[in-house]
């Protein structure tokens, strides 16, 4: 893996993480610290799955 692809992969992961965290904010009704922590964790898991799925399909 070159430096360029590593950067691209990291950017992809972060973009998914941010997008899914925003989705979590839309789903919930009230915001407080614990909710935020759980949301960030769930969004991280979703971002990992998104990147793994994309890699399984396209192959790099």
């Amino acid at each position, binding site marked *: 893996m070159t430096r360029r692809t590593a950067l691209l992969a990291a950017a992809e992961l972060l973009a998914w993480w941010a997008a899914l965290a925003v*989705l979590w*904010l*839309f*789903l*919930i*009704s009230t915001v407080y610290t614990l909710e935020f922590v759980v949301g960030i964790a769930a969004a991280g898991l979703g971002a990992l799955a998104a990147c793994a799925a994309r890699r399984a399909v396209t192959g790099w």
Partner: protein
Amino acid sequence: MVNGWTLAATVGLAGGLGAALWGVATGPLRRRVVAQNLATALACPGMLLLAQGYGRPAYLDVGVVLALLGPVGTLVFARLLAEELAEDPPRAWVATWTVAALGAITVIALCVATGPGRAMAKLLVIGALLIGGNVVASRALSGGFGRVGRG
């Protein structure tokens, strides 16, 4: 408790799901799969209207799950019935876009009633998932899966 929202939901569910049931019970396979797709596309706006009519935002979660998994169910049929559908592909763009428009009108009306905020964003996400999902599922039914061997 009767209000405009529940009334609209009653009329929509009775007409829409009744028609979908008729479509899925009779006719060739290509008509049945389209009716199955439209059943979820019509039921989801009905659920959103019911949530508004009952005044319980928590019921929106049923709509979220339906908007996510309904099109996935149609993809299951499109994928595993691909051979039979390839011989006689469904062409139902008029019905698909009509139902999508109904869903969009429902979501917009609910957004106007809700007012700006995160609740409105949730409604918009549901609407996007529902309409996008059903259009893609419709595309998948009419030749979305090419040659499927053993896979």
